């Protein structure tokens, strides 16, 4: 079973003005689609064709750079689209909010640290909120690596990810990654982040 581009749960324009329709369309139909296509090519005729994406992530140390890069690209973008949505933003609630407050001091402090992880990632990559056992951690990864990979420095379940490849923000924000990361909070789908948090 070849991997497929998952359906986007909203229109390209749905995250305006924070993320513009043109960025969404190119990011989803070109970049994400290319990762899916390249992943399928990279695993064609191997046992990994039958495995889940999670399985592949957990074994990237044994696989080619093409599988690591494109498998990661597919996983990361799939997560990214679902942790954003129209009419979202605000703050987390319930157990997740409590865990964030306990770990980082406050939601504001969490946002500050997460933004810092995104700002200090030099080159291309991702900022993450990760569940490691029962703990929350903030980390960042280069290129299309992620915390699901066996090679990751901080391994765990990613709950929230911000793409800081320039393609994620350059058409609207150019060199101003800080403005993109500030706008990101207006589109975060905390219900989905919480759903992932409760996953066992």
């Amino acid at each position, binding site marked *: 079973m070849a991997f497929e581009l998952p359906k986007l749960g909203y229109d390209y324009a749905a995250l305006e003005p924070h993320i513009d329709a043109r960025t969404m369309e*190119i990011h989803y139909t*070109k*970049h994400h689609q*290319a990762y899916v296509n390249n992943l399928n090519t990279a695993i064609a005729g191997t046992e990994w064709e039958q495995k889940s994406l999670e399985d592949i992530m957990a074994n990237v140390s044994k696989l080619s*750079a093409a599988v690591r*890069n494109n498998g990661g690209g597919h996983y990361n973008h799939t997560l990214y689209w679902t942790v954003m949505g129209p009419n979202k933003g605000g703050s987390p609630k319930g157990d997740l909010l409590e865990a964030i407050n306990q770990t980082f001091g406050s939601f504001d402090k969490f946002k500050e640290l997460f933004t810092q992880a995104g700002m200090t990632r*030099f*080159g*291309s*990559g991702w900022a993450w909120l990760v569940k490691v056992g029962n703990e929350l951690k903030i980390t960042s990864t*280069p*290129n*299309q690596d992620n915390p699901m990979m066996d090679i990751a420095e901080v391994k765990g379940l990613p709950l929230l990810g911000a793409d800081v*490849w*320039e*393609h994620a923000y*350059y*058409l609207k924000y*150019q*060199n101003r990654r800080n403005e993109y990361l500030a706008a990101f909070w207006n589109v975060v789908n905390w219900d989905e982040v919480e759903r992932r948090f409760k996953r066992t």
Partner: protein
Amino acid sequence: MPFELPKLPYAADALQPHISKQTIDFHYGKHHQAYVNNLNNLIPGTRFENATLEQMIREADGGIFNNAAQVWNHTFYFESFSPAGPREPNDALATAINETFGSFAAFKEQFTKSALTLFGSGWAWLVKNREGKLEIVQESNAGNPLKSGHTPLLTCDVWEHAYYLDYQNKRPDYLLAYWNVLDWDVIGKRF
């Protein structure tokens, strides 16, 4: 003496339609400037306070390396362009390219492939190695071949900021356009 953004040897719109004025304005005016500013903020009080960029590229790591190398890389990149050619190598460099790669066309093909297969942000380079031979190398992020003892001759920036406003995801189109703005007199002098 703080580092300064070197002057661009042509107008910001001089490379159009291959590289737009908007791209130059951001790439040179914002990104390159930011690396200069960051470096000037990072080095006071360190052992690199009076160092050259080349020294920092060879010896530093972390933020000082990243910003020093990015200042150097961008200066080298922007200086390789001119609005009016020559668009092919000449003299000794032409001979060396033909000897190493078979032809200029074959060299372009290999260099383009190197730039297209670099995953993430970085630079493709044509260098003269320690043995004086030509070689194509890839460097991630701020990477610079001086660090491994090579002499850089030519570079192509494949950070997305170098082409996204003009070409978006189409890095191959940017690479095609790139050959139309190179000044091989400048590159030949480096050889």
